[in-house]
Structures are given as structure tokens and as C-alpha cells.
């Protein structure tokens, strides 16, 4: 039975549970809801929750854990010699999985009969041909152990699915029945629903957190793998970045890190003053009408995809800078792709981040502060400089650090605007590259995934992650420390 069907059936049982539990509760007080502990619908919700919550939870766990258990069992049954013959157990299991899927597809398309698919003594060349016919990509001729394993896997999958359907639906029915039994006049259904809602929210929050943990772990394992085959002292100590996929490459992080920081600093030098001044104008000087128009307009900047900014850098800003600083002008710039190009465009991208957040923060400074200052005979700009901005400072610092995290993580603008040359240089008109841009180029190359040239991407990603994490923690610290200054 397909999962969707199981899901719909569980929901159906839940709906039934709602109706029955609600009616039973009402019936227990002779249809006068005033005598019930909770509103009738709460009994209904309880019926729905009892029916669906555990059933769906079991369904999800089964879907995740089931294949893992089956695969482990099938792998254990593979003859030892076969595993040694193949490069690794992972590769072999991938092949088994492919054949199993292929058999399923072939049966579904009518190329194979169910009997033939389960036949352990089938003709191998014929089977391979039929699987290819069914559109399954198979790297080599199917061997006997692989076919056996695939068939075993299919069998196990089918049993598992049947049991899953039975277990989930039984749980749903049991839950609904329990709720209906409990739907009596004095039962505190409202409190039960309240707890149910709470656990639902807890679930949502923990999914977000667990995903983060998962991302970090996936980075971490590959990073450890990288440092096993490439010395960390070289990675953090070398000043050269010259990956060569033939081997013998130097993978020093410094040129990339320098490029990242240089471009980010230029971007912030553009974005912070402009964004902050725009925010001050919008929140302190502009009339409400102008503000209601100008603020959304400014925020449109934040909605432009970064690839469009990249094109803007490549096609407009680069040539513009060349015409001023290039060979016909000051002669500092060789090509349109440079740190300056990417930095300027990235700065423009960050303006709405800084201005929108700062604007909200400046608006949150109580009017009493401004009144106090005006009442002492201060002008508007004196008030802003000496009272409003200091009071809003923690929030503004937070906004700037958030923008910095964005700048450090930005990729597309760098790829198109800053070039691809990793170098350590102080000249902002030279091409450089950043950590993120190199992660893309290292992973999209032809390198063997197990080579240091490809794995270095994870080490770079991990370094970047730690840097932005530190920035965010620092921002949080600043905001916490100064948050209660005015009140």
C-alpha cells in the first residue's frame, strides 16, 4: 500500500475520531455543552490527535529506519567473497539497490512478470537486458549474488511495507478508540489538546535544530576525512592556493580567506554608511507618506537574486571601473573582474539589510529620548548623533554583523565580479576569489570525490561556517550586553 494511502487513511480515521469523540462527549451531558469541562470541539480535536499523532510518528520512523535495517540485513547475507571482489561494500550495496529498484520498475512496466522477477535462477544476461529495457542504469552485467540480494531486498521491503501499513492503521484505530472512550463529561480534553499543541511546536523547533546539527555533522566528517589525507598545517599555514587535479596541489586557505575578507570589507564600507544614513533619513526626517513608499522600494533591493547582481557587476560596474581605473584612465586595473567590482556590487546588495534593520531599531528608540533632547534645546542632528544613535547602537551593530555574515557567504557576485584567481594582494583592482567561490569550483570539477582537491571544499565550508558562527555569536553578545540600556 503506498505511503500516501496510509497517510490518507490515518487522516480519515482522525476525522472519524473527531466526529465520534465530539458526539460522545456531547451525548454524555445530554447535548448541553455547558456541562462539559471543555468545548465540544476540544473532545473532537483530542480524537483527531490521538488517532493521528502516534500513527504518523511511527510511520515516519518506520520510513526512515526501515530501509536501513533491511539494507544491513541484506548486506550481512552477502557472501564474503563478493564484497572483497567489489571495491567496497557501499558500491556493492548501491548496485543491489539499483537492481532491486530496476526489478520493481520492470514489473510495474510489464517487462517482467512478478514470477520472473522473483525467480532466483533467472537467466542473467536476459535479466540485464530486460532491466536496461525498463530504463534502469546498470553498470555491469547482473551477477548471481547481486540478483539474489536484490530479490531478498525486494521481498523484505514488501513485508516491511505491509507490516508498516498494518501497524500504523492499527495504532490510529486504537488511538481514536481510546479518545472516544475518554470523551466523557469530566475529562479535561482542553488540557490534553493544549499539551498536544505544545508537543507539535516542540517538534517543529527540534526539526530546525536537528537539521543544523545534521549539516554541521555532514561537514565535519568530510572535513576530518580531508585532514586525514592533507596536513592541517599546510591548509592553515600555506600562503598558496594552487589545486592541480593531478595531485601535488597546494591548498592554503589564506589567499581565499583574504579575498573573502577584502571583498566583505569593501562591501561593508559601501553598505554601512549608505544604509545607516538612509535609515536615519527614513526614520527621523522623512514624512510618513514618503517613508511608506520609500522603505518598500529600498527593500526591493533585497529581493533581487544575487545572480542578477552578479550580472550587474560583470556587465555594468566592471566596465565602468575599467573606464576610470583601467589602461585608458589611471592604469591601475587590468580587467573588469576585481575585488572592487565585487565589493561595490555586494555593498549595494547589503544596503537594504543594513537600512531596513537599522530603521526598525531607530524607530524602537522611545520618543521620550528625543523629547528629552529637544527639550534641552538640541537640534535634530544633535539629537540623532548623541542620543538616538547611541541608544540604537547595539541593534545597529547587530544589523551590521548580520550584513557581514551575508557578505562572507555570498558566492554569485564573487564568481561573476571578482574573477577566479586566488592571490594575496592589497590592490583592490586585482582579481581575487573567495572561499565560497572556490568551494563551488572544487566540487563541480572532475576530481575524484575522495581526493584532497574535492574534499578541501568541506574544510573550507567548515572554516567559513565557524567564522560566520563566531560573528553571529559576537553580534548576539553585543546585543544582549547593551539591550537594556534604555527602558
Amino acid at each position, binding site marked *: 500500500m503506498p505511503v500516501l494511502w496510509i497517510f490518507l487513511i490515518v487522516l480519515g480515521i482522525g476525522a472519524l475520531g473527531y466526529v465520534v469523540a465530539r458526539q460522545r462527549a456531547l451525548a454524555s451531558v445530554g447535548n448541553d455543552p455547558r456541562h462539559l469541562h471543555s468545548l465540544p470541539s476540544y473532545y473532537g480535536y483530542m480524537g483527531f490527535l490521538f488517532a493521528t499523532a502516534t500513527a504518523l510518528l511511527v510511520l515516519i520512523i518506520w520510513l526512515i529506519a526501515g530501509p536501513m535495517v533491511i539494507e544491513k540485513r541484506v548486506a550481512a547475507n552477502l557472501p564474503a567473497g563478493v564484497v572483497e571482489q567489489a571495491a567496497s561494500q557501499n558500491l556493492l550495496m548501491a548496485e543491489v539497490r539499483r537492481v532491486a529498484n530496476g526489478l520493481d520498475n520492470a514489473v510495474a512496466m510489464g517487462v517482467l512478470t512478478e514470477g520472473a522477477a522473483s525467480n532466483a535462477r533467472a537467466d542473467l544476461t536476459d535479466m540485464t537486458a530486460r532491466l536496461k529495457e525498463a530504463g534502469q542504469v546498470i553498470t555491469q552485467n547482473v551477477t548471481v549474488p547481486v540478483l539474489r540480494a536484490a530479490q531478498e531486498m525486494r521481498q523484505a521491503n514488501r513485508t516491511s511495507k505491509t507490516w508498516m501499513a498494518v501497524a500504523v492503521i492499527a495504532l490510529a484505530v486504537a488511538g481514536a478508540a481510546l479518545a472516544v472512550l475518554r470523551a466523557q463529561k469530566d475529562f479535561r480534553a482542553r488540557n490534553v489538546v493544549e499539551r498536544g499543541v505544545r508537543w507539535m511546536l516542540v517538534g517543529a523547533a527540534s526539526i530546525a535544530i536537528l537539521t543544523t546539527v545534521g549539516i554541521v555533522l555532514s561537514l565535519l566528517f568530510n572535513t576530518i576525512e580531508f585532514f586525514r589525507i592533507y596536513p592541517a598545517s599546510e591548509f592553515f599555514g600555506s600562503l598558496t592556493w594552487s589545486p592541480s587535479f593531478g595531485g601535488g596541489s597546494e591548498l592554503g586557505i589564506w589567499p581565499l580567506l583574504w579575498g573573502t575578507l577584502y571583498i566583505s570589507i569593501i562591501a561593508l564600507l559601501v553598505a554601512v554608511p549608505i544604509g545607516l544614513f538612509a535609515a536615519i533619513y527614513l526614520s527621523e526626517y522623512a*514624512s510618513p507618506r514618503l517613508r511608506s513608499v520609500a522603505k518598500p522600494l529600498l527593500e526591493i533591493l533585497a529581493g533581487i537574486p544575487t545572480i542578477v547582481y552578479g550580472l550587474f557587476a560583470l556587465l555594468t560596474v566592471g566596465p565602468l571601473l575599467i573606464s576610470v581605473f583601467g589602461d585608458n584612465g589611471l592604469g591601475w586595473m587590468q580587467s573588469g573582474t576585481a575585488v572592487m567590482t565585487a565589493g561595490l556590487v555586494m555593498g549595494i546588495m547589503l544596503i537594504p539589510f543594513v537600512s531596513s534593520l537599522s530603521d526598525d531599531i531607530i524607530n524602537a528608540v*522611545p520618543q*521620550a*529620548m*528625543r*523629547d*528629552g*533632547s*529637544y*527639550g*534641552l*534645546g*538640541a*537640534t535634530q542632528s*544633535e539629537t540623532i548623533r*548623541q*542620543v538616538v544613535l*547611541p*541608544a540604537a547602537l547595539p541593534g545597529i551593530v547587530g544589523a551590521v554583523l548580520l550584513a557581514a555574515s551575508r557578505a562572507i557567504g555570498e558566492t554569485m557576485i564573487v564568481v561573476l565580479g571578482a574573477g577566479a584567481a586566488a592571490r594575496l594582494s592589497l590592490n583592490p583592482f586585482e582579481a581575487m576569489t573567495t572561499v565560497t567561490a572556490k568551494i563551488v569550483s572544487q566540487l563541480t570539477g572532475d576530481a575524484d570525490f575522495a581526493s584532497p582537491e574535492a574534499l578541501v571544499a568541506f574544510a573550507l565550508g567548515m572554516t567559513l561556517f565557524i567564522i560566520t558562527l563566531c560573528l553571529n555569536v559576537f553580534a548576539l553578545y553585543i546585543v544582549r550586553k547593551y539591550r537594556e*540600556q*534604555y*527602558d
Partner: protein
Amino acid sequence: MNDMRPLERIVDTDNIKISAKGCQVYYGETHAIKDVDVQIEDNTVTAFIGPSGCGKSTFLRCLNRMNDTIDICRVEGEILLDGENIYDKKVDPVQLRAKVGMVFQKPNPFPKSIYDNIAYGPRIHGLAKSKADLDVIVEKSLRRGAIWDEVKDRLDKPGTGLSGGQQQRLCIARAVATEPEVLLMDEPCSALDPIATSQVEELIDELRTQYSVVIVTHSMQQAARVSQKTAFFHLGNLVEFGETGQIFTNPTDPRTESYISGRIG
């Protein structure tokens, strides 16, 4: 004794610090203050009383043009400070506010140190030539605000860390530091407990020796305690203005009498 008489009269006329004539205030379409005439004397505490929304705070804010910061607010008529119309084009509201200081309903110390709170006004008006000068001004203002003894050991601590009553006295000291001639107080005690209130009231009485003080208050007892002159506002009109004792014991207008005896408001 007789030749003292003309002299006394001159002092009386000189004594008028602020005089409003036919003052009207509009908030958009709403006519908030209707034709108010009032004369505020120097070295006197004048109390504005009246029910909520009667326009007493609005009128107070006209006296140092704080209403200018509200876009839809429009003021008509004349308000003379030392004989000069403060709504004249050549008057700079920023300078006016240095002369007519203001203390607000809720204590609003800046999120700065106690010292910087007091030094804020003198700094922006360039009243101190040196750091030593500034130190003197800060100490003098804090003493006048009757808070020096409590804060002298922690001038570098934030002003927001003080208690409510201390914060309000800090704000009064801050207003005093710019050497104003008039001090406007908009319900300065409404956020304070009784002890802090009595401290601030004592302070107001002392301030009278140097400034003309105008105080808006909801508490009639407070008006009776601290003021010499009282003005009663009702629905945007100035109903009655006179000696505090006379207003509270023998009001001429029936509306004043009803308010004071608690029948309206």
C-alpha cells in the same frame, strides 16, 4: 511707605515672564486649545490643573514650542516670553528650548552616564570652556536637583540604573544645567511613589527662587502644595486663573468648583 508703591507696581509688571494672548492650538481639524490668555510670573510656581484631555499639557508644550515636532499641530495667537513673541519667525525654537527647559511625565534619562546626562545640555550649548568648568556645572546642577549626595560617587554609572524618583530628579537637574529661565514640568510626579513625589515637590519649591516654574498636574493636592498660581483648564478653555488659595477655596466659576469638589473630571 507711600513711595514704595510705584516701585512695587513696576516690579509687578516686570515680573510677568510669559504672557499668552488669544492662543489657539489645532491638531489637524481638532481645536485643542481655545483662546487662552494667561500670564505666568517669574519666581512663581504656576500649576495647570484640569481633567484628562483638557489641553493643559498641549498648552504647556506650546510654551517652548515642543509642539513643533508634531506635524499636524498648528498654533495661533501670541505667546510672549519677556515681551518677545516666541512664535515669531526670527525666533529659533532650538534656542528657545534652551531658555525654557522641560521635564517630562516619565523620567527619561539618556542611556548615558549620570555625568554625561547632565553635561549634555551645557555641551551642545557650549556653556563650559573646559572640563573643570563642566565639572562645576554638573555638580551645581546635581546639587540644585537635590540628588548630588546620592550620585556623587557614581557619576560614571548609567543614569538609567537609578530609581524612578532619582531619575526624575536627574532629569530636573539636567534641565537646570542649561541655565533656563523657565522650567516646564509635565506631570513630573505621576510615575513616582509618594516619597519620591515629596522629594520632587520640595525641589520644585526650591527651584522657585531662581526660575519661573510651570507644572501640569493631575493631583489637586499637589497643585495646592507647590503652586502660588493655579490655572484650571476644561475642554480646551482656560476656565479660571488666579491665586492658588483662592482657586481652591473660593472659585468663581461653577466648573472649577465642580472639578475641585470631584464632580467632573
